[in-house]
């Protein structure tokens, strides 16, 4: 009986820790996405799916679904990173499309 209570307590504690870690991870991922998206915006090349993923991350975070928040934020960050790469490479490559 006593052992049982101990196991339950440990499980609850474990869940709590996991929950807290999820919250921290989600917040970190959201901050990472925000930073990358700021660079993309400054390069005049934000993608609409990055905005959508970021909004989804914030909504999931507010609803306490930290796993979903983290996944969406990581997607937003990856999209922003791709748009930054696009904008930087276009700084050179756009010239190739000009009729001469």
């Amino acid at each position, binding site marked *: 009986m006593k052992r049982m209570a101990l196991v339950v307590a440990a499980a609850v504690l474990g869940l709590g820790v996991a929950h807290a870690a999820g919250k921290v991870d989600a917040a970190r991922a959201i901050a990472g996405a925000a930073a990358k998206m700021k660079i993309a915006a400054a390069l005049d090349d934000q993608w609409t799916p990055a905005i959508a993923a970021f909004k989804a991350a914030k909504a999931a975070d507010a609803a306490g679904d930290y796993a979903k928040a983290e996944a969406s934020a990581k997607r937003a960050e990856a999209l922003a990173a*791709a748009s930054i790469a696009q904008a930087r490479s276009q*700084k050179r490559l756009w*010239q190739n499309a000009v009729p001469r």
Partner: protein
Amino acid sequence: MKRAWAMIVALATLAPGLAPPAKADPAADLKAFQGYFQTRFPTLALQDYVNGPYNFSANDRAQWKQILEFPPYSFAVDAGKTAFGTKFPDGADYASCFPRGGIGIAQDYPKFDEKTGKVVTLGIAVNECRERHGLKPLSLTKGELADIVAYMTSTSDGKPIHVVIPNDKRAIAAYEAGKEYFYSRRGQLNFSCASCHVQAAGKRLRGQYLAPALGITASFPVYRSKWGDVGTLVRRFIGCNKKVRSVPAKPDSAAYRDLAYFLTYMSNGLPIAGPGARS
């Protein structure tokens, strides 16, 4: 659908030339740009380009001509004329803000403003006039401002587009920025304006023919059936940016001012044909 996109991607990667970047030379750019289209579509006369997508399908053109018998933009022109003629609370009016009272001047826009160092489109000039007389600026995409610009543009019908790039470093920088914007791929779909309106001009995309970039500004503002009202060139920029999953710039941003400057300059010599009607 998939095939159409694939074809445009393929076309877009066939770049017309790979020469190294040259010093800014708008006049040489214009010659090469207009020459490119004239070689591509030898049967089209320069002034035909103002008809945009309707150069490529007799069917679409016939339908469009029919629509033009009762031009759907005429309400906007009338409303714009009334608004244009209405005095401001301080007793001034729009006419007082423009050369020649604002009549027959649309072909000279966008203009470079030496005082601010910025490009000013006709719509932005209308808003600047309002603000000078204590009124709030209007939306640059539709509504009253689109009506006023439609009216002003109607008084320039047929006049050759005459955008000037003065020999001022800032004007040339604005032109170059507009040019870079036009040719730079953006958005998740990785298209530039040029991918669709230069490299794929005259091809079909989702049942629509892609208007060549030459003459593409001449009919604005346009009444679009899809919109159900009249919209400005900036409204179209926003729509085309979203199409490639790119977040549009702000209507009065430097990016869109410069883009309009470059793109309209490329049509110098073609007649103003606005306001226009589109599907």
